[in-house]
């Protein structure tokens, strides 16, 4: 038995990161910054710049949401409130700055949005965070409805249905940047994204950030190590509001308008979808989710009329089969990759891929055909969904869809069992080789 009063060997605590680890850590951030700088050189079209800007905004918003869901275990159905208020305040700020010719340049306007998000989170959060779990989720929904409905009453401030618009080029110019062209907006968003991501990552490494995780895992025990879970939830909520406000302000700058949709249930739902699909268990999960969902919603809306349905189905599938989201799925393979047993599972993936794809194709064919008859019954039955033309009026389509869907499901079910089995084998082998899961 060791002597308790003896000096603690330095090896007990986790090792301090070695110089090479630190270099790697800072290298990642520098690489990210460089990538953001170079990106517009590679994809310079106005469309892709807009897409990048939207992705950046969505990354900040999703990460701010994950401070609640992933870090502190609070499921919010009303996070868009702080995003939207940040947006409205930013638009008003631009107008006020332009009217009074204040010496405030556009890149500082997101701070106004952040402050708005923070202040409203401080006001509304105190009551919301008194409860956790399901009650918190319902309260967040109620508060969101309250704010969204009030926004329609306070027409002078929120501009009613039409919203409030502003001209972002009318504020003080820095270095002759007018912030008219999308490329300049891109760099503005990129810089703020980098700042916000670093800040939110740093937050997870603080005493508060660690206690957020503790509240998520076991709010009861937290009370017996000296902490008030309500206060922890409240501070986390305030930070979340701050960053959501910054995201909303950037969105408002990007579109030069803020309207009631910014505050609405759809916006709250979208950030929840993006964060969860990306994966709440890892810091980069929401980043992955923001990129995936933004691209998906832009891409799918070109391919099919009912893209929102597919969106919902993808979300349900993730909740049912991949609760760790995309990042969780990828991270599952890390021990296999380290142990070199990844090769064991890949063949079973390939086998499972074909019937699963058939099943999904059958489902989509069925949906698109039904959509043709219910949504556009009068139009030509030769429709094109996902770029593939087919004749919806042809009865054979129903048969094909049914065969693909049912047949695919029957076969796919067996292959999934095989995937699970070979995955377990590979993980066991990896564990035997001494790789921790």
């Amino acid at each position, binding site marked *: *038995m*060791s002597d*308790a009063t003896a000096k*603690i*060997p330095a090896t*007990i*605590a*986790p090792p*301090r990161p070695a110089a090479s680890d630190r270099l790697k850590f800072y290298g990642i951030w520098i690489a990210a910054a460089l990538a953001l700088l170079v990106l517009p050189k590679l994809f310079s079209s106005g469309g892709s710049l807009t897409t990048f800007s939207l992705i950046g905004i969505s990354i900040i918003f999703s990460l701010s949401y994950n401070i609640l869901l992933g870090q502190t275990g609070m499921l919010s159905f009303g996070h868009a409130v702080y995003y939207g208020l940040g947006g409205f305040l930013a638009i008003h700020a631009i107008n006020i700055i332009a009217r009074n010719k204040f010496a405030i340049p556009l890149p500082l306007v997101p701070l106004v949005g952040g402050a708005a998000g923070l202040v409203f989170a401080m006001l509304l959060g105190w009551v919301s965070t008194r409860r956790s779990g399901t009650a918190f989720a319902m309260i967040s929904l109620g508060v969101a409805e309250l704010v969204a409905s009030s926004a329609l009453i306070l027409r002078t401030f929120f501009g009613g249905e039409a919203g409030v618009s502003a001209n972002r080029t009318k504020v003080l110019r820095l270095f002759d940047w007018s912030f008219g062209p999308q490329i300049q907006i891109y760099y503005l968003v990129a810089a703020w994204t980098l700042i916000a991501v670093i800040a939110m990552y*740093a*937050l997870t*490494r*603080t*005493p*508060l*950030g*660690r*206690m957020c*995780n*503790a509240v*998520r*895992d*076991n709010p*009861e*025990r*937290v*009370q*017996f*190590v*000296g*902490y*008030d879970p309500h*206060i*922890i939830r409240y*501070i986390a909520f305030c*930070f979340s509001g701050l960053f959501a406000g910054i995201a909303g302000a950037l969105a408002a700058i990007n579109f030069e308008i803020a309207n009631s949709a910014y505050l609405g249930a759809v916006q709250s739902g979208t950030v929840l979808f993006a964060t969860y699909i990306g994966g709440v268990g890892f810091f980069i999960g929401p980043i992955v989710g923001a990129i995936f969902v933004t691209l998906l919603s832009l891409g799918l809306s070109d391919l099919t009329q009912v893209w929102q349905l597919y969106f919902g189905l993808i979300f349900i599938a993730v909740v049912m089969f991949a609760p760790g989201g995309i990042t969780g799925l990828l991270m599952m393979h890390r021990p296999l990759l380290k142990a070199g047993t990844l090769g064991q599972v890949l063949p079973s993936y390939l086998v499972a891929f074909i019937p699963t794809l058939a099943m999904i194709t059958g489902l989509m064919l069925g949906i698109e055909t039904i959509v043709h008859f219910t949504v556009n019954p009068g139009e030509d039955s030769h429709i094109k969904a996902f770029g593939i033309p087919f004749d919806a009026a042809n009865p054979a389509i129903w048969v094909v869809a049914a065969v693909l869907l049912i047949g695919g499901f029957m076969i796919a079910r067996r292959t999934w069992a095989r995937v699970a089995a070979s995955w377990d084998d590979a993980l066991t082998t990896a564990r035997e080789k001494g790789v*921790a899961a």
Partner: protein
Amino acid sequence: MSTAIELRGVEKTFGITSVIRNVNLTVAQGERHALIGPNGAGKSTLFNLISGYMKPSVGSILLRDQVISGLPPFQINRRGLSRSFQVTNVFAKMSVWENLRCAVLWATGHRYAFWKNVDNLPEVRDRTAQILQDINLVSRRDVPAGLLTYAEQRALEIGITIAGGADVILLDEPTAGMSHAETERAVALIRRLTEGRTLLIVEHDMSVVFGLADRISVLVYGQIIASGTPEEIRGNPKVKEAYLGEEAA
């Protein structure tokens, strides 16, 4: 000797059932005090009352002569009283290291700080390492608490309880479900870790109780029927009748 914990006429009723009835109990500073009694006697409820998890229906509880009954658990903890749980109650997804560190943060004054890097706090680091070594889990430092063995989780449970440096410790059946060898190790651990502190322990294993405790109180049907040194308790006819009798038989 001054008193660490004092219960004055404490009662607890759930609806019409009264679980704790007029309990008066004093635990002196630095004393190891065991609370024994048959199942359902209200031992865990008494712990819940002292630690602030529940509020007494009647009566008051004092910690070092200050009333603590009615305060929320975290304020009682901040005044230097810490408890463990009968059912292991750790932060399952976090590593052993993180679990202990969370228990150290408040006591080291970092509270809700969001401007400090938690990895760069030397006193937090040293103290966490100390506890980790004390509970013999150094080799399991980076394992998520949910994946530990039962005995290891119990050790972590004790570690979290003492990590904040509270000088009044309440342990709720720390050796329940352990093998003989594990129990021996746990008792040695408890003895060592509570050196110089006040300990109130609920325990079923009589060898543990009589080996560890300076004083023992016997709780039967929500009432303390006897309180005294192990010898006094052993010789007390009321205790024999109500409790030890069945064990000895």
